[in-house]
């Protein structure tokens, strides 16, 4: 093990950046060639950029939910849970029209569609009562619900929006929950669009330890930084594998580690890694030169010249590789 360790003074960061950056340039050429194909989940360069930027929400967020071992191979149970999870809001099954003269909202329910989602008019009325605090009289007739609201016109519109957003069923933020069969393990799991771990956690029979999302920030929030680091690694690796690009995992590990080293997931770039370098000169050399210089002068900062960039700027040997060692006179 000791033999396999990286030597002291080896420029692992640069090598990792080059190892990820070189195939990245090739991806630019390839991914944009898929133009026109209906994209399910962004892969390739757009996804990679999304990851290293540590976006708060990916373009296509996904949540993978595994059930407890007892049900994990039970397709039926999985489907049941999936239907229960899928979020349905009022505007999904109803059309809402405003009547400003009578100051009422007419909610027309698409009965067929609602039935397929297991929702009845009664459900809707009870959810309306539950989720709206101030509520007028509710009258219902077959597929119509009349909601009387006694306010100003401007407020009526606001209430309409609120009514439309009333959630009827499922976990908020999750849509299109489908059951996926894993050929390798023979297990079933639920893949849902969106994310909302806070509420998903409360679902019965789910294996909390295997809950996963492609939103690294969400994982950080619920499972902590170590899990986020592993998720980041997994996601980057997945992008590279999908493109058939061979990059040693250790480079990806280093990048994931660097992004998570400060206790939260930080992007690579101005607002993250490069913007938080300890050296003033190194930061000024990257972006927003004047900002860094001025701030440093206000605080009277001192640059100990330990990094690579700083030493190149002033014209010294860098403390790296052959520049790491020194002769000492006795």
């Amino acid at each position, binding site marked *: 093990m000791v033999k396999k360790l990286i030597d002291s*003074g*080896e*420029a692992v960061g*640069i*090598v990792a*950046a*080059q190892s990820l950056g070189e195939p990245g340039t090739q991806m630019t050429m390839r991914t944009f060639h898929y133009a026109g194909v209906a994209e399910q989940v962004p892969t390739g360069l757009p996804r990679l950029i999304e990851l290293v930027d540590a976006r708060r929400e990916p373009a296509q967020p996904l949540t993978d939910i595994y059930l407890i071992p007892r049900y994990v191979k039970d397709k039926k149970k999985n489907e049941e849970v999936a239907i229960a999870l899928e979020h349905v809001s009022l505007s999904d099954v109803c059309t809402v029209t405003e009547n400003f003269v009578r100051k009422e909202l007419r909610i027309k329910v698409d009965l067929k569609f609602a039935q397929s989602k297991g929702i009845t008019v009664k459900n809707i009325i009870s959810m309306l009562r539950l989720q709206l605090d101030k509520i007028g009289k509710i009258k219902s007739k077959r597929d119509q619900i009349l909601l009387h609201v006694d306010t100003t016109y401007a407020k009526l519109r606001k209430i309409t929006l609120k009514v439309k957003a009333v959630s009827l069923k499922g976990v908020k933020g999750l849509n299109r929950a489908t059951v996926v069969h894993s050929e390798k393990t023979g297990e079933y799991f639920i893949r849902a669009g969106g994310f909302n771990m806070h509420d998903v956690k409360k679902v019965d029979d789910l294996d909390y330890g295997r809950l996963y999302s492609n939103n690294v920030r969400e994982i950080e929030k619920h499972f902590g930084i170590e899990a986020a680091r592993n998720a980041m690694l997994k996601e980057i690796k997945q992008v590279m594998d999908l493109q058939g690009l061979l990059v040693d995992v250790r480079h990806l590990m280093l990048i994931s580690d660097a992004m998570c080293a400060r206790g939260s997931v930080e992007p690579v770039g101005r607002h993250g890694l490069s913007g938080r370098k300890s050296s003033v000169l190194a930061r000024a050399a990257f972006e927003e030169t*004047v900002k860094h*210089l*001025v701030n440093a*002068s206000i605080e009277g900062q*001192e640059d100990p010249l330990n990094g*690579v960039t700083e030493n*190149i*700027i*002033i*014209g*010294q*040997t*860098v*403390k*790296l*590789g*052959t*520049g*790491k060692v*020194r*002769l000492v006179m006795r």
Partner: protein
Amino acid sequence: MMATHKTKVHKEKTTRAVVFLNGLYMGFHENGDELVKEVIAKRRTGELTSNLNISYQPSTGEIHINTSGGRIRRPYIVVKNGKPLLTKEHIEKLKSNELAWNDLLAKGIIENLDAEEEGSLSLIAMTEDELTPGHTHLEIDNSSITGVVVSTFPYSDHNSSPRLTMASSMTKQSLGLYSVNFNYRQDSRGHVQFYPQAPLVQTSSYKALNFDKRPAGQNFVVAVMSYYGYNMSDALVINKNSIDRALGRSVFYKTYETEERRYPGGQKDKLMAPTPNIVGYREEELYKNLDEDGIILPEVSIKPRDVLIGKVSPPRFMEEVATFGITEEKRRENSVTAKGGDYGIVDSVMLSESLAGNKLVKVKLRSLKVPELGDKFASRHGQKGVLGYLCPQEDLPFTASGIVPDLMVNPHAIPSRTTAGHIIEMLGGKVGCMSGRNINGTMFSGEKEEDLRAELKKYGFEETGEEILYDGITGAKLKAKIFIGVIYYQRLHHLVSNKIHVRSRGPVQLLTHQPTEGKAREGGLRFGEMERDCLIGYGASQVIKERLLEQSDKTVALVCANCGSLGVHDYVKRRDYCPVCKGTRMERIEMSYAFKLLLDEIKSLGIFPRLKLGEKGK
């Protein structure tokens, strides 16, 4: 009642049209179709200008009439009732010069359409057989889908379009006979090829454009085979003896010019051989070929830095106004010298007058450009390559009849680029050589590949175009049959001798003290950020320091040990001191000049940077 109302609205929409002239709103016309018909008829009779085009979109009810410049237009034969207006009689008259193109335009037999009219009002047939009463125009020739340059390429219907694009842009770079009066011209740069040839395989538009009178290329005997490693990756192997027989040879002309300028204040340049008392006088050696008038003599051999036109100018700034009337003015050397890499012979010297009425001199330099390693060649099919090896003829393979190829192109260049036209032109060239005629390779309508193969057979060759070759070195038969033929190759104007550039030491920029950039300034090649990253990745810190400091902008600055600011040296008192704290304990510190500049810029921001000095090596 409702129904009639609706149809009325509908009818109005289709017939009533908004009329725009050159994009400006003009008004309404009650019947769009009628207006269009009338305008087109008037254009054909010559009542309206033939530069006019009209378009009508019934869906939007807009008629656009355009007469402005900048529209791309294309000629078509006008068709009436399914019959083209251009008849055999017209063609006979055209042949006997009784009719000209413009007559056909004036008669409305041929008209130019722009993109809008073609798209909205026309139905164009490609061939006469396709014509129906509905057609409005007939294409003159189906090869007219290409532009001028591509239309001169043979068998371009067998090539992929990107290759045609590349071929057409490369053809524009080919050397040939660009002008017949080149000897009297003073172009700033010009190439003229020795013995240019018209291609064996031509197209109808090639002849129509009279390109065969100003050809730009030569017919090469080409073998499609590898030759050791020398034609890998689009390199070419060329027969050295063919080059010695002037294959691909050209001459390069370059003109230097200057004029005797007048300056405010009555001062004037003077064309003369500078004398040693003139500021900036160079070595005497450089002036030795100047004539009495200060201009170089024709047929003199020139090397870089030689003075071509001696010129003396007044000083750049007005200095010391003469106190005792007329003092002799210090004058400045301002001669025109040959630039780096310009070897040659003075071809001609021209004396004239500039627009401002000043004396104007142009010196034309001539240099022979024999093809050498790295020079660029291309066929007319987007197949370009650089010369990789000049092979002696005795080492090249030969056919049973003793033919030795001029050029060998690597077979890997063909399949992935799908330039079948290249292969067919080689076949055609071979047939042309044997039959002593030009082959018609016009796209879509040229001589068929099968016919060429059949004719080749008639002359005793294999119809595949392959032949048995013998190794020039061992004399043994080559195991594979080699495809060999004749094809037109162009020498392109990217010549190594005009691009070669080296630097070990040289000029630096005034501002940064870093080496200059570019060949003209004798500059270095940039060691950029990514190159720097590679050295860091390798851990070669001493190499980085050498590249980025020692060989770039190293300076020694005085740093105050007390306050850390940059100091100055007082030459009078012979001591260093700090202008900020007046301290005298100064250290000489090695740093990049760029860093010194950075410190200055930071100071200009109102920030005081201090350098804290430490022990060396710690």
